[in-house]
């Protein structure tokens, strides 16, 4: 909780520091110095808003030659110097027809002078020198205030409900998901048939929350298999995920009171290549014919091959993923499918962990807020009030 207070203080002070200033400079038009290609005219040098303070926007009026001799101008080149007398360096170019350029290579607070050169095939014409322009460092990106509000809101909700759940020792109501019974049933059947249980954590590494949610479910599956003495097979895609799975399974065996039955080699690294992995798992399915297949985690195109191959080997299949593209195959070919967030909710329920349960509750409240925000948004917009939409505007 102390930490949250600290975050708040940090954010509030940020907002207070929000001191974006815009400096503008105009200058007088230049005389044409060429017959055919007339020079452009710089109209303004502005600090690029909401940035690091390393960029100046240069705006100019297009050279009259653009309309007089279409196609005569190829591009505008922009030159910069740190004083009107010193040499000008080229900082960039834009195609004909464009009248704005952001020079992203400036030091905050330093004055700069610019000129824009219209370049044709054989001749060119430079605008008069304009300046000084300065870029200003900003401490808060104003465009993102709606984002900030939502980040604070959601993080607060989740953190608060985790604390509440901890205080209540995890005794918070979560809807019973039919998949829990299915897990027990599937492992039970594998035991009866004397066949192994295949558990696949998906293609993501441990920094994917789906993999972590999958670990909670793996813990339950491993505990059951340890208790029944059923063989568990966990091929992994990433070395890190493998190490984490080993630890999880080891603990589960300990909880089930059978630490000696734990075999490290049952959880092994196969390959990090997607289809190499598919081929490997496919091989396991065809050769060993596991009686229960679990596909929980992040899945990509391999989902269908797994689900369909598992279907032909006659395994009970339980799937769950937050990868929206893959859900259709699981829904069609598996016995039970956890859709998106249900994967996280199932992980929370199974572990009985107040932290996970609290987060799910916090997420639920956030969803309720979204729900009413949308309804309020529609009602207000129909009444001609755009306030809720403006808060969410990013540009």
């Amino acid at each position: 909780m102390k930490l949250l207070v600290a975050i708040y203080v940090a954010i509030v002070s940020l907002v207070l520091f929000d001191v974006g200033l815009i400096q503008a400079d105009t200058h007088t038009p230049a005389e044409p110095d060429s017959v055919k290609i007339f020079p452009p005219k710089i109209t303004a040098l502005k600090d690029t808003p909401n940035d690091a303070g390393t960029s100046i926007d240069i705006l100019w009026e297009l050279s009259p030659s653009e309309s007089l001799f279409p196609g005569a101008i190829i591009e505008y080149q922009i030159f910069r110097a740190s004083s009107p007398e010193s040499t000008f360096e080229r900082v960039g170019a834009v195609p004909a027809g464009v009248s704005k350029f952001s020079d992203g290579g400036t030091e905050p607070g330093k004055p700069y002078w610019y000129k824009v050169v219209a370049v044709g095939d054989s001749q060119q014409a430079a605008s008069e020198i304009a300046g000084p322009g300065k870029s200003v460092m900003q401490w808060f990106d104003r465009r993102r205030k709606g984002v900030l509000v939502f980040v604070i809101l959601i993080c607060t909700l989740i953190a608060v409900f985790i604390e509440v759940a901890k205080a209540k020792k995890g005794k918070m109501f979560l809807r019973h998901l039919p998949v829990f019974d299915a897990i027990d049933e599937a492992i039970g059947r594998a035991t009866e048939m004397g066949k192994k249980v295949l558990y696949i954590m998906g293609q993501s590494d441990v920094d994917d929350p789906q993999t972590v949610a999958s670990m909670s479910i793996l813990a339950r599956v491993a505990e059951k298999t340890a208790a029944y003495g059923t063989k568990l097979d966990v091929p992994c895609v990433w070395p890190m995920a493998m190490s984490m799975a080993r630890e999880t399974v080891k603990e589960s065996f300990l909880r089930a009171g059978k630490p000696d039955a734990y075999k490290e080699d049952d959880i092994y690294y196969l390959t990090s290549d997607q289809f190499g992995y598919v081929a490997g798992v496919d091989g396991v399915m065809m050769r060993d014919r596991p009686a229960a297949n679990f596909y929980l985690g992040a899945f990509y195109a391999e989902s269908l091959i797994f689900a369909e191959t598992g279907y032909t080997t006659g395994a009970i299949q339980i799937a769950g993923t937050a990868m929206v593209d893959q859900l259709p195959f699981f829904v069609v070919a598996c016995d039970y499918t956890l859709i998106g967030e249900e994967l996280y909710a199932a992980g929370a329920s199974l572990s009985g962990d107040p932290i996970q349960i609290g987060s799910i509750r916090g997420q639920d409240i956030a969803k309720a807020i979204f729900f009413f925000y949308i309804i309020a948004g529609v009602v207000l917009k129909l009444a001609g009030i755009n306030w809720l939409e403006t808060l969410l505007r990013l540009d």
Partner: protein
Amino acid sequence: MRLQIPLAIILVMGIFTLVTAFIPAKPIADVNQLLRNWYIGIITFFIFLGTFNLARVNINKIKRRRRDWGYSFILLGCLALMLFLGFYKGRASTEEGQPFMYLYFNVQFPLGATMYSLLAFFVTSASFRAFRARNKEALCLLLAAVIIMLGRVPVGTAIWKGFPSVTEWIMNYPNAAAKRGISLGIDLGLISMALRMILGIERSYMQ
């Protein structure tokens, strides 16, 4: 020590990147850029570690004479060959016309593409055997699938001119609505997991 320092690292890094995402000022943005470059640097070692582990696993397989251990020789041989061909001429080894590229275009390419193309068979088989209108929901799924299958190929247009527009309508509205609902939920799950890991509440990823 073994727990406190890593937890401090994730806390400091997490809070810093989160908060500074709203601060565009140059000194802070520069630090962030550097941290992210380090991130990319470390990530590359993950993949090298993966390659190393693959070799190790297969050597162990051969040593212990596990099932299919003979194939591990092929795997190790291919891995060694690829590494040799990728390094023997320095950077130029991966240019066009080099043996490395021949292996890519004539071994890796056909194998990878063919693996995926097996899916054509599996999707058809799944359509025939698993795609049943068991209840109203499944019927809904089935009808939507058939309409879109017709709307996405020229022959559908030949049957009825309206299929493409019906398809686009389904994709743009009911499909988009459900996908949006799912991803809002998924985002929340993602945020809550990230927050827990940053705050050190979730530690299961540490071995």
